């Protein structure tokens, strides 16, 4: 299972590289630093948080679906939570750090909890099986 997650994160990493290349082609007059910063921002703010949250349903939805829905979910979460935090006085700079970090942390926590449940289910069915 960990190999699976590792493989998916590698795929996301490759996607990030492809996205950066695409942005550099589209905005070829722009300096590379700005392009990389923009690409990183897109992935940090929108793609990663949502994709990792969608990992909860990885058995139900394939990679492409989780990527598209996840990016949309990332935008929704960051927009909604960010707006509410802003009303409470938390500024955009802090929001841009903590919301994606919390989403990623939550996604990983839910995943490890789900894995833990599955492992204990597997153990108890192993214990119950005849020799």
């Amino acid at each position, binding site marked *: 299972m960990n190999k699976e997650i590792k493989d998916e994160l590698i795929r996301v990493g490759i996607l990030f590289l492809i996205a950066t290349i695409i942005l550099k082609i589209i905005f070829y007059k722009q300096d590379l630093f*700005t392009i990389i910063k923009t690409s990183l*921002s897109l992935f940090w703010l929108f793609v990663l948080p949502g994709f990792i949250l969608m990992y909860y349903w990885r058995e139900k939805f394939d990679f492409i679906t989780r990527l598209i829905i996840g990016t949309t979910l990332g935008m929704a979460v*960051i927009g909604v939570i960010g707006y509410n935090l802003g009303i409470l006085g938390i500024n955009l700079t802090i929001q841009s750090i903590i919301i994606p970090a919390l989403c990623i942390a939550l996604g990983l926590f839910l995943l490890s909890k789900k894995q833990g449940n599955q492992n204990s289910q597997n153990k108890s069915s192993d214990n119950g099986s005849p020799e």
Partner: protein
Amino acid sequence: MFIAVFLFTGLSVFENQLKHEVPLGYFASDAFFHAAETGYMSEQGRVKYASPAVVGGNRDVLDIHPPLLFETSGLFMTITGLAGYDAVYFTSALFLLLTALLMYSIIREFNKSIAILSLPLTILVFAFPFNNSMNLGQFLFIAGAIFMLAMIWSVKHLKEKKMWIVLGFFASATAIAHQPELIYAALFIIALLAFRLYKKDFEIKTIKALAAAGILAIILSLYSLRIFLMSWVTGGTGATLSFTTDAGVVGRGFTEITLMTLGQNIYDGAVGTIISILIRLLIIAGIVFTIIQAKKRNYATATGIFGVVISFLIYVGLEKRAFAHRWLWYIYLSVFLGIGLYTLLNRIVKWKTTYSVALAIIVLLIFFPAVSGKTKGTIMDSYNWEALQWISNNVEEKAVVHYFYVGNLEQSSTLYFSDRVSRLIVYDYYIDALRTGQIHKNYSFGLAYGYVQYVCERGPLSFGYYEYYEKQSNQSCLKEFPGLLKGELQQNTNICDIKYYYFNKAGRIEQLAQYNMAIRDLLLKNSWIKEIYSNPLVSILKNENPGADCLE
């Protein structure tokens, strides 16, 4: 490849750069308004209060517009360092891309090949006049549409564990992105439930999940919805339910779109006609095949039909709130083109997904040069932009700047970038004055404003209203809605009372520019009126002694 081509096309107005000295791709009031607000809110560090330049100098008027665009663009702007106008445009193009990809995801669950074949059509959202959504700055609508489709996707999967949380977030995002799309999504859900009830495919769990999602959405969007109720609903949204044959959109500057518009403005001549006919025939074929195979229930076609039906709600008085969905017809109808193409090709040869990929690439490469690069420039020129930025950095915060003829900047929201209260000459009266051949003591100026209600805070969770367009020294935040804002939108102003004068030295209407210069030259004869800023197009004067007779 699709993503690259879509973004290249949608952002071709950026001239292959991410950062710009002036707002590129901005041709209408709404566009400038959103960019100005995003820039201001980002500087403030949060999305809460409207820019004083938009609300008569008030610093504590709550923004009454759905905040999601400002929030996401503001965050993007904060991390990337892009200017507000670049961040807003880029984010909106990204929203449009995701809208196309969401439709693709919905179709894909029905048939992968059809989904791939449907994708290239969506790039035509950048063909005229469907590109009005971007060119005329209808960014809030685009933000609403993406989350409306996201809601539709998540409702389909509500049976999955905890999917109600996803729906809740999408519903909340729709609520704070653009409220009409929340209503439309709710109508879709009601229609879906009614259909399931009819088909005896109904579960109580679904209602429970919907209720949970609804409660979550309300909690997350309560603050924004409260402001929406107090402003747009109390004050009126402008839409009235009644039967009509006129969308009223042409009067707002939108180009009319009918079913005959589909396929147009892609290529000229015979090629263009053939492509246009092919697109329409394939869509019709797709609809026919869908009807023939109606027994195979299809969520994707239901979504497509729904999107198109919304756009005909203009006939019950929903005006531009419904009309706007016509800009997305290529996305909604893509499923039918995909079905039409797939079904026909499958009858000729056993059609594989790899063939769909190849054909989609070919179609994409046919459409791409036809729609890419067609939108160029901006109505904002670099000289006026520079001058507005100079005002923002050098003129005291509480100043009011009076603008005489300013050429292309007739749309007053361009002046919000000065970050100061602006009064723009009323052109009809200015032209009348010009015709007299004389310089007058009084001219009529209108306030550049963007809100029709000013919602203010009476306490931590208590709101009220300001009464006047311009900030008053002893104003209080009233509990009851005072009706329309008061105060003079247009003021007959004594030219000698003005502190800051802004002139364009040239413009589309040369006589008005010459009249500008005649007034400017007369004013400069006074020792207390000096030119404080000048560039090849703009002259800004400061009156150190407002009230003294300046027309001798």
